[in-house]
């Protein structure tokens, strides 16, 4: 469903992505791991063109993503949920509005959007805090709102950029729970960037290790983590063991 070929991106002299190839199949859950600065975020953001790559190609359901015009791109993005590390909620809107406003702006009837938003919020375990504003919530709750916002459009692909990395360790659990629940119950294709190795082990069909802008190893979590080939994978194995 997602086919990335020879993707390249550099910032000045820093090469963030170096000829990256990656395929993701429909319904698959892929976890990307790697040290800080290895290009994970860049890769995942290139998929919905939050970052414009310098070269290479991305196909989504056979559609050339990099060749889309702005209207087509907007359609594509609506079909891809994106969860940010920093939640990226709209501060001035309520929780409910945060989840529904892009539906309304996309042309949906307001009432219908409210229903959908409430459903989505229920899915992430938020049933009663709709009228609050993001700053009145805990980090975990905020991220769950972010998740609800991403999945309210019922996207084909969900992209997660370290959704728990900026959370209090105590709050990580509730978010991971929601994620695991989503992976197991929706069947949506997911690309998840995370450092949570045990979570990866539990939910991922495939794990991809990156280092310095390149994919260094990939395979099923069991295979990769039991018999790591790359330095990075070995490091993560140690992490898991400890």
């Amino acid at each position: 469903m997602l086919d990335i070929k020879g993707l390249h991106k550099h910032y000045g002299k820093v090469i963030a992505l170096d000829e990256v190839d990656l395929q993701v199949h429909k319904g698959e859950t892929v976890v990307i791991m790697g040290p800080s600065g290895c290009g994970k975020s860049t890769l995942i953001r290139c998929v919905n063109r939050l970052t414009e790559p310098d070269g290479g190609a991305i196909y989504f359901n056979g559609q050339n993503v990099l060749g889309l015009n702005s209207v087509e791109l907007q359609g594509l993005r609506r079909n891809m949920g994106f969860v940010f590390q920093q939640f990226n909620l709209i501060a001035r809107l309520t929780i409910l509005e945060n989840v529904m406003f892009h539906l309304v702006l996309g042309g949906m009837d307001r009432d219908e959007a409210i229903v959908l938003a409430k459903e989505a919020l229920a899915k992430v375990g938020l049933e009663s805090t709709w009228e609050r504003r993001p700053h009145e919530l805990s980090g975990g709750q905020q991220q769950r709102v972010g998740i609800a916002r991403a999945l309210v459009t019922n996207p084909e692909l969900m992209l997660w950029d370290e959704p728990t990395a900026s959370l209090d360790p105590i709050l990580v659990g509730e978010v991971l729970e929601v994620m695991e629940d989503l992976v197991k119950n929706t069947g949506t294709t997911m690309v998840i960037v995370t450092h949570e190795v045990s979570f990866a082990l539990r939910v991922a069909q495939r794990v991809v290790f990156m280092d310095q802008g390149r994919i260094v190893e990939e395979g099923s979590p069991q295979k990769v983590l039991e018999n790591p080939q790359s330095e990075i994978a070995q490091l993560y194995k140690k992490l898991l063991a400890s």
Partner: protein
Amino acid sequence: MLSFFRDGFYQDLLILLIVTIIVGAVFSQGIAWAIDTYFGDTLDGMIGEYGEYDLVLHIRDEAKEAALRELERIGDQSFPGYKLNQTLTIAGQANFFFGLPAEFRTKEVLESITSYFGAVPGLNGYTLMVEPSVLIRGVHPSVRQELREQLEDLPGVKFTVRDGANLVIVLDSEDSVPQVTKQVQSLLKQYQILELRFPMGFEVDTQLVGDQALAILANQLGAKNRYENVTSAEYGEDLDAFLKTLVEMRDFLTSYASKVLITPDPQVRLAVGERILFAEPSDSKEEIIVEVTGVFGELIEGMIVQGQPVQSTDKLVQSGYRYLGDGSLGEYVGEVTIENERYRLAYAIDESLRLLEELEELAVQASEAVANGEAVLTTFQEALMQLEVLQVQMHQLNEGIAQGDSKASGEQFLVSLLLNGLFQTLAQAAIKTGEGSLDSLQNLDIEEMRQSLLGISEQIANVQAIDVAAIIQQIGFVRDTLPDLRDEEIGQSIRLINTYLGGQVIPGERIQILVRGSHLDEKELETLFRSELDNPYLHTYSTSVGMVNPDARGEIFRILKEVRSIVAGMLSIIFTLVVLVLDHATIFSTLKFLRSCEKPIKRRFLRIFDPLFLLGGVVGSIILTSVYYLSRAQIPLVTLPVVLLLGFGLGVLVVVFAERFSPVHSMEVMAGQSLGLSNVQIMREVVIPPSRPGLMNLLNRWKQQF
């Protein structure tokens, strides 16, 4: 970057720009208008509405209450229906505005203001402000009458009023002011005052030379009747008086200074201005330097410019040598005689003081002498009387001896002999004075002597009655007040006065010629007059016979309008900057952020000529230029290109500092992007609502859905 606007935001931006421009124009014009109205009202409050008042009476502040009462009395009595208003007190002077009822607004009344108001207590003068009117300032007296007649014939002119040197042309209506002003100006152009000035020391007989000048003009330019000698004595009276005083002062100082006469050596030529030094500084220790002030053949006059000769009433004769610049002696030039009237005067005064003191003493002594003389006379008279008695007794005795007793005894004869002897001795003194006998003593008129003594004594008393002491004191005072100036000081003062008088600083005598018709070039005429009148020092000037003055109110309003335009201009600039910072900085910073997510620009030229700067510049330029011209702003020297450039500069500046003015909430923008919002939706829903409150924020409320 253009794609950012393509999906609809350009409409928002366009509407924003239009609204901004309108609001800006209304704003700056509104404030300018408010300034206008405020000052206009204040002015009206101060000087009344147009035509409300006709004259301002300037009254000393302390007398204003009395003046008010008197003005009301005059108004009630002479001008029923008058208007009176006391406004500002400026510099200790209260100003009363007095409005005449229409029927009294006549030439006759306006020209006899002094006879109506002259007795108002504390009146310091008045200013006519009849409206509508045109004012001509400084009308030359020679054309005043002629001008008035012509002016009163102009359409729209009611009458003219003379107000000192000014002429007020009272009009029928305000509308005719510009037209009459124009006509008056062209009328004034028909006249020219050509002035010939002669520096001090070259004064001329203005009548004679004036006529010569007329003749020269007539000869050279023809049209004899065009010129008229209008040199007027009253013109520049004060200045003349001052100059005369200066001349008097100079003469006084000259007579007061030491006279220096130089008898030049036959071989020596001395010129005015040369300096002479004495060989040895005689008794005084200072060097004495003499400057030659006049050479009249053999007679050379000088003036001491340095040093002070010894105080002496006698002539001082010294050998003089040329003074060389470096202070050394040059060649022998001749004998220099210095005479000082000042010392002589002082000497004379001292002498008379001495004389006066002696006179007083003399009077005292004389009166004592008279008193003595009187006492002598009395004694003398008594002695004479006793002598008479004795003489009678002696006669009787002699007769008795001779007749009664023929047989006189020897005793009797002896007595007779003794008495005769005694008498003879007594009479001795009288004999010496020429009188032969006692009879001649008797003949002395004692009474007359006494009378003349009395006369003398009276005269002496008169002398004594004169308060000599007071006279002495006064003369002493005169001597003390004699200027205690050193010769060099006098010399310097004279030189100073001479430069002042001789230079062009102050004109000397002048001749004024009225020229009718076309204008003459005074500089060309200067050369002509200089050669024809044989006077290289004269100057010619040309002046007009009067100046049309915009009326005070018009002038104030013109200034007000200028201020208004400048304020509007400043406000336009401020407004543009504020709008750019409040509204457009948000757009610029968002654009900057979005561009950072895109592929970096490769074309070098675009990196230098960043289209974002172009956008900012154009937006700034459009806003400023439109607001500036719509608000009818005008700042001196700020022309259209300047305005365009200024707007552009402001725009670029705001682009450069856009993030400082309006930071982007990049995470929210990214969220919007990831949710598939279009740029216009991101702007309306994500970027603008939390941005600074401004026009854009306000306008966005119509579009904003959340």
